[in-house]
């Protein structure tokens, strides 16, 4: 397998200083950019496979970088962000970023996100026909969800939500994306619908609905389906 090339966009030299050796050691080819303009240029010329993007850049807003990139590229983007900028994080995801990692982060978490994002590269909308999470099996061809071979009866809405999460398996899906896909654009803000349906879904598919392991909550952002 050829080395995936990763563009790291961050203006803090300290971050670059440890990311470069760490990602190289993890088997990636690392190129660096310190500003938004440099980043856009690097994506166009160096053809990286994935971008790690800090939202706070000296020359332009990280969200603008995403918007510009999404105008002509489907390259996976993983965001580095701080917890206190939650709204920015959601805006970035809604603009087309694939995932995010909160600072400070361990390298293991970052590489896991990178792998997940790379896996979906180019086939973002076509999920595998059969997904397995824990002891749960989702068969999208037969429209069957089962645990240990026992079929689970889901309502159409619950099934939609589950497969939507499944299409982005391993990655975060924002509340807004879930709401607009399942209920339509007029319901983008009706968070309480989502809470209720996710709750019902968990009742049916989780082993312990109070401590969910399959449909994880990303506080303030959305949900993530954890697959094996």
């Amino acid at each position, binding site marked *: 397998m050829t080395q995936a090339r990763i563009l790291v966009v961050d*203006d*803090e030299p*300290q*971050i670059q*200083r*440890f*990311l470069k*050796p*760490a990602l*190289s*050691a*993890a088997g990636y080819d690392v190129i660096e950019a310190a500003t938004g303009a440099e980043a856009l240029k690097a994506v166009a010329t160096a053809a990286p496979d994935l971008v790690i993007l800090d939202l*706070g850049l*000296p020359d332009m807003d990280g969200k603008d970088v995403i918007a510009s990139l999404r105008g002509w590229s489907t390259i996976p983007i993983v965001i580095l962000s*701080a917890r*206190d*900028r939650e709204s920015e994080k959601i805006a970035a995801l809604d603009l087309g970023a694939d995932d995010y990692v909160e*600072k*400070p*982060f*361990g*390298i*293991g978490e*970052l590489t896991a996100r990178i792998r997940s994002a790379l896996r979906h590269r180019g086939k973002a909308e076509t999920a595998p026909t059969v997904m397995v999470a824990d002891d749960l099996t989702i068969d999208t061809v037969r429209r069957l969800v089962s645990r240990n071979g026992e079929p689970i009866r889901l309502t159409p809405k619950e099934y939609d939500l589950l497969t939507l999460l499944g299409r982005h398996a391993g990655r975060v899906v924002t509340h807004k994306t879930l709401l607009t896909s399942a209920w339509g654009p007029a319901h983008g803000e009706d968070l309480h619908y989502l809470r209720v349906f996710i709750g019902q879904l968990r009742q049916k598919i989780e082993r312990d609905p109070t401590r969910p392991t399959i449909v994880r909550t990303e506080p303030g952002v959305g949900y993530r389906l954890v697959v094996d």
Partner: protein
Amino acid sequence: MADDDRTTQRRPDPDALLALAGKDGRGKLTVFLGAAPGVGKTYAMLARARRLRADGVDLVIGLVETHGRSETAALLDGLDVLPRMRVPHRGRMLEEFDLDAALARRPHIVIVDELAHSNPEACRHPKRYQDIEELLGAGIHVWTALNIQHLESLGDLVADITGVIVRERVPDVVLKRADEVLLVDLPPSELIERLKEGKVYLPENAGRAADRFFRLGNLTALRELALRRTADRVDDQMVDYLKQNAIEGPWASGERMIVCVGADTLSEKVVRVASRLASGLNAPWIVVSVERADREAEGRAGIEQIERIFRLAEQLGGETRRVIGTDFVEEILKLARREHATQIVIGAPRGKGWGRSWSKGERPFWSQSLPDALASRASGLGIHLVTGDREEVRASKSIRRLPVLSRAGLIQAALVAVPLVTLATGTGVAIDRIMHLPNISLLFLLAVLGAAVTAGYAAALIAVILSALCYNFFFIAPFYTFTIAAPHEVFALIVFFAVAVIAGGFASRIQEQAETARVRATALQSLYDFSRRLAGTEKAEDAIWAAVSQMQASLRRNVVLLTPEGADLKIAAAWPPDTELDVTDMTAARWAQDKQEKAGHGTGTLPNSRFEFRPLSSPHGVVGVCGVEQTTERLDVNAERALAAILDQTALAIDRARLSEASVAQAARLEGERYRDALLSSISHDLRTPLATITGSVTSLRQLGDRMSPESRDDLLQSIEEEGSRMSRFVANLLDMTRIEAGTLKAKRDWVDVADVVQTAVERTRKYFPGRIIETGIASDLPLIEGDSVLLGQVLFNLLDNAVKYGGDEPINVYARRDDQDVLISVTDLGKGIPPDDIDRVFEKFYRRGKPDGRAPGTGLGLSIARGFIEAMGGRIHAESPAVKKRGTRIVMRFATTTAPTRTPGGPSTSGRPA
């Protein structure tokens, strides 16, 4: 009407229900009504009270006059009696009803005898019925007693019947609004018997009048009045009951009355007659006064007369209206149509001729009288004429004409008329010498017109008379006598006279109108200027001062404006500015604020205050109270209008200013919140970046270390070390800042060798930033300064750290030298410098050059910590930029050395200073 009845069929009348709802929460008033003193009202009241008391009702005697009757006094036994209040009055002490004690005691029922009583000046209200009104307003039920002759609308009747004029009168509305009226009745013969037995109290000095009063005829008449009034009330209650319960019945008379009044004494009679008529018809009534639109109302006396009549009408339960128009008949009919009136009551003077024509408003004398005109033009209306006699009309006439024909006015008019007529005569004589002019009288007409235009109607009349005399004397044969030879000349003189009177009348009318218009325009202009001035004010204070000066200027009275401050009122502005309010004034002002009604001088509440207080009402409640000092002269209608307009505008302006002040405060709070957000995000960024580096590096080493080159591993370890120390510096800065802000920073007061400290700080900086050139220049004659060497070292290090960050790659200079008695230390870089706008802000907490999102290097704390430390040591610090050749920043610290000892080897802190 019939249609109305059908549509509202079987449904309760909303007005009736509303009136009922309005009574909720109020106390109930029970009146014990009697025909005369001595019929046993107090006795009846107390007997009933005892029964209720026995049932455990919380009932208190507020005030009862037993007038020494032992049977009545005996009834007081066992009842709670409130102590009376002692009030000084004209050198004597009077015992009065203690309103505040009753309000504080809050009984279920309070008994206050003698509704018609007048309070002495020191009391809050001049009349007892006002005290009772306040008790009712506070939700306390009141029982009281009243003799029928004290009822306002019966004042003239009672005087006619008994020949005694009753001074203490109670407005009819009080009785009308009473929830319960109990008639205490005693046949007159029995009453006279009781009187003879000495059981009826009589004041000694009223002996003879009382003898006249207590006659069988009088008492019978009064008894009839009392019975009738009670019966009317029962009838009203029946109607109310029918209406509220939607029972159809022959209740509604459907009558409405318009009562026309003017500034004459007959009008008072008209109002009283109308009120009796209205209560008989059970009809609402509106008292209306029509003013001419083109003329200043009626003169001062007229205005006061009309106001008196209006007050009387209001007390009798009528509504009052002022209408402005030129055609009196039309205006009255218009109002009648609008109000669906069915009856018109108007005064018809019995006299003929001039007096009659002047009695209602001002009309040319040749037109028919107002009642006649009304009768001919009104269709379907009943017209009641109230006749007066000659005296009443004459009084009214003098009221009307007095202001115009005052002595000063006459002299002034003559001063204009005489020279004009003299001039006309002289000119006429001169022309007559030269040629014969057949109609020389035109010259005199000119003089009359001139007098009319310049000095009004009086001057015109004087000019007419003088002109006629002069014309006759000089120009009608035989000359130089007042006799007239030719009969046609007599005719010519008469025609001249008539023409001159009419022309003079018209001309003076025009002049008066112009004058009126000018006065109005001036008033309007002044109001307009005021509103413009108000619009320009931003603060409530400014609006208040503008209002006070405007009121002072337009009313020529002392004014005071109070605004709420906390729970109380405070003088916000006053003219004269040192005005002080006594307790009575303040109480009246508070009353005006709480009850949203006028209080103080000239009102029913605390009239012995010097000021009349009015609330300033805005859409958001009362924003203040305005007091206008009252003199013996009342404010005229124009001043009243101006005052009302000024107060309205002021209230709005204050309200607006308050709102805008609130919104400014809100904006400041928002700004503060934004600042705090920026601060938090900047601190979190400064803490998180090193943390992220450390966490990332450590996890990388642990998970991927074996796949890295040794150099990479070393580099990661080194970055962990550096970031650790960066964080510890930041945390130390934060702690320093907290200490400065908390005021717990204690600078030591040691002798400090500046050169020593500078060297140490420079060494430390070089260790952190090995590549940077730092030049030092330290004078050799530096004295010691008093301070804390650790703090000073920290400050220097912070300054050097800043210089490294912002100084580009240029060398950094540190100088220390002596300046007179001071020691100056400066750190200079050659970077871009500080923009002039920011030079004062650099010492603020979290100020940093760079992006506003706080992503500049550094913590934004260095300089503010430096200032905190330097000031704690008693020194000063400031920034200069540009420092050298339009570039760079210089931070200068200055320490005083006045008390420093000369530096001697072996002295304190002199160790190790390099040469």
